[in-house]
């Protein structure tokens, strides 16, 4: 490995005590794992809540242990907290803060993040946000029921329902704390990428994972501030008697509200200005991982590296101009709706470029279907399946019919939820050997993949048809509704599929912890990848490269290089063809 014989410039030494090593650690790798395990805990909370919803939808009077019968307001609470945990504490946390923290510095040849103390603060602030959110379950009235989007005036009026008192306050406070943590994280990511790349690691030599984390961090920096401002106004409406979002003349539960003049649509604008970029905050890191893996496991360079970079940037930029498509139902001007519709459909262009390039990458490659690759291909499949319903919803006329139906639930779960989760799985199976020094069990991984892929499609594809059949979303009990009776078998099928898919996740968790201790020992570069993390010890040492910084000579996807003895060239390889100097490149004899 080519390296630079200078100090790595590491600002903190290796910790020795347990607390500094594993709890209040400044090491980006430990912090990345902390984020990862926080997301793992959150995803199980989110899954449990979704399972309760699915049970309630087909057996509305079922008696749930410790909970009893799920009442309609409890259903809304489950819906709210499922969305909240999944969007904020899983989809925002694991792909960006988890894997990004662990691998971004290594992939750009840095000893750590730019601001290690801020990094630690960022995690613990997120953890506080998590605790505050959990606390909302246990206060009087329970957790809120205003949906993960926190629509006003429901979210702004404490008397609007159980959970809208202290539970809703805690929800808003938790989200505000999460915003602050995310802003700190975004600051750190951007500074690290701009300032800590090693010699030779030009922007256009960065792995696409780093590009994805970079653009995601910029999206976070620009979006979370706006959500924070909206949260502050909402808290003021609830506790200080202001009227930002609550209109006048509102009667809630038989009582006229004293607020006047506020605009519920103002909340929606502020929320969705954050909310739509949030979709890309969740999915972009998955795109980066898919790109990395499709190239590695096809043993081919990524097809159109620059186009992939520009597509990531394009998606990021366009993502800020489309928030209105979440509000076609709100009675906005048709001219505004047309503009938002046009911009939304324009996002299809960079998305199609990415999909085309992914297919181009695996086309005629020597594809190896190891578990990381399976999940990367699964990611592309889900991205396409979920993405294809996007242009339908981007058109106001169609959206007005479909918006409040299960069609939308199917759409965003496929493209934002499960696709991003597949990105997390792909990254886990790919980087596990580097993180823990052992391989994950492959048969278990394959079983996990097929059960999850089939289960996911079994859950969400039927929801499209339910939506087209006008089955509304957000309603707790529709089992007695005559015109939806013909959909009940489909509902039952979806719930059974959810049972099986959730059960399959225990295979993953078992594999994860079992492999940490019992898995086959991994070599430093088991997948024959080219990027910098595969040049380090396994697991990487405290400062990643052992007091030296690497020097980069190549792009990140040098696979099937003609003449290269190993078919690939590491980024740090100083020779042009991976140690093999072809005849024509040999120095000529002196004449």
């Amino acid at each position: 490995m080519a390296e630079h014989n200078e100090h790595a410039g590491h600002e903190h030494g290796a910790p020795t005590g347990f607390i500094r090593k594993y709890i209040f650690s400044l090491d980006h790798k430990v912090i990345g794992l902390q984020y990862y395990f926080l997301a793992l805990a959150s995803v199980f909370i989110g899954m449990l809540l979704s399972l309760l919803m699915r049970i309630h939808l087909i057996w509305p009077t079922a008696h749930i242990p410790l909970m009893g019968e799920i009442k309609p307001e409890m259903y809304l609470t489950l819906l709210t907290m499922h969305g909240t945990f999944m969007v904020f504490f899983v989809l925002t946390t694991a792909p960006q803060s988890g894997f990004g923290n662990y691998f971004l510095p290594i992939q750009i040849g840095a000893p750590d993040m730019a601001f290690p103390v801020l990094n630690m603060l960022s995690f613990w602030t997120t953890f506080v946000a998590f605790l505050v959110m959990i606390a909302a379950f246990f206060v009087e009235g329970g957790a809120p029921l205003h949906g993960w989007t926190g629509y006003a005036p429901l979210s702004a009026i404490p008397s609007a329902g159980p959970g809208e008192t202290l539970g809703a306050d805690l929800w808003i406070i938790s989200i505000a704390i999460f915003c602050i943590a995310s802003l700190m994280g975004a600051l750190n990511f951007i500074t690290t990428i701009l300032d800590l790349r090693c010699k030779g690691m030009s922007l256009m030599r960065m792995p696409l994972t780093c590009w994805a984390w970079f653009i995601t961090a910029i999206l976070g920096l620009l979006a979370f501030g706006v959500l924070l401002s909206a949260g502050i106004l909402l808290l003021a409406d609830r506790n200080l008697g202001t009227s930002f979002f609550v209109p006048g003349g509102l009667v809630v539960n038989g009582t006229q509200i004293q607020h006047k003049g506020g605009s519920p649509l103002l909340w929606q604008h502020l929320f969705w200005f954050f909310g739509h970029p949030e979709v890309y905050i969740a999915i972009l890191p998955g795109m980066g991982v898919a790109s990395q893996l499709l190239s590695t496991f096809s043993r081919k360079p990524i097809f159109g590296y620059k186009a992939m970079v520009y597509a990531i940037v394009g998606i990021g930029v366009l993502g800020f101009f489309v928030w209105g498509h979440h509000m076609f139902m709100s009675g906005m001007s048709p001219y505004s709706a047309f503009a938002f519709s046009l911009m939304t459909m324009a996002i299809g262009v960079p998305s199609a470029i990415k999909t085309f390039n992914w297919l181009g990458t695996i086309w005629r490659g020597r594809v190896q279907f190891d578990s990381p690759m399976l999940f990367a291909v699964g990611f592309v499949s889900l991205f396409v399946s979920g993405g294809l319903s996007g242009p339908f919803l981007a058109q106001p006329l169609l959206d007005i019919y479909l918006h409040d139906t299960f069609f939308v639930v199917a759409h965003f779960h496929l493209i934002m939820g499960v696709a991003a989760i597949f990105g997390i799985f792909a990254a886990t199976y790919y980087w596990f050997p580097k993180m823990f020094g052992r391989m994950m069990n492959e048969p278990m991984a394959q079983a996990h993949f097929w059960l999850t892929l089939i289960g996911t499609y079994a859950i969400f594809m039927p929801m499209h048809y339910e939506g087209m059949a006008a089955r509304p979303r957000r309603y707790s009990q529709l089992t007695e509704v005559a015109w939806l009776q013909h959909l009940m078998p489909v509902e039952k099928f979806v719930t059974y599929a959810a049972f099986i898919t959730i059960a399959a996740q225990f295979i993953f968790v078992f594999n994860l912890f079992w492999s940490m201790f019992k898995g086959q020992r991994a070599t430093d570069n088991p997948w024959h990848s080219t990027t910098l993390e595969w040049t380090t010890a396994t697991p990487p040492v405290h400062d990643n490269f052992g007091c030296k910084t690497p020097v980069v000579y190549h792009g990140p996807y040098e696979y099937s290089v003609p003449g290269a003895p190993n078919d690939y060239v590491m980024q740090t390889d100083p020779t042009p063809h991976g140690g093999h100097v072809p005849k024509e490149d040999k120095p000529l004899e002196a004449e």
Partner: protein
Amino acid sequence: MSTMPATFELDKKHGGGGPTLPPRRGGGGGESRSSSDGTPDFRDRLQRYRLGVCVGLIGVSMVFIGLTSAYVVRQGASTIDPNTGFYSNDWRPMTLPVAALGLNTALLLLSSIALELSRRSLKRQYAVAEAVGEGQAPAPPWLAVSVVLGIGFLVGQVFVWNQLRAHGVYISTNPSSSFFYILTVLHAIHLAGGMAALLYAEGTELLHRSVAKRLLVVDVTSIYWHFMAVLWVYIFVLLQFVK
């Protein structure tokens, strides 16, 4: 005599970034200078911290941009008046205590100027220390002046809030007053964060820390502080003229 070419070009279809040798120096972060104890060089640290603060200020800006858009939208929003049943706009322009706020503005701008003088003075001290070593005569107390003026601004803001409350203008009185309190209090909270950094810088001076360390803190804080001064002027103009 023919020698090995200085650069090799791989087939462009391989790899994403263009595998040209040698690597572009500095193109990828460049060389990191370090001191003997392994910590990054002062200039590297300064560059990194400056970059970090500037990026962080973009995030802060987005909070206030969000509030500004809410300010404009809420100002034009009209809803049904429960008493009359007609659409009406309940926004009533607020009369600001311009004199007191103007004085506060002056204090903050002077504080910003004093901090800039302190930064420049420290920069000169650092240059001298680099050349002949530390131990020269102490710099003028511009940092202390900046801290005092900054505290003056915060105290002045509390005075303005109390004055308004004494006149019956509370946060819930009208949407215009709601925005006034939210914008000014949020700005004050941000400024208090800057004040904590300034007090830390003052502490490093009192504890006779190295000029480099003091300059690092003061330089980075000054970017934040100047931004807060400009942000305050923006908020003042918004509240005074966009009614």
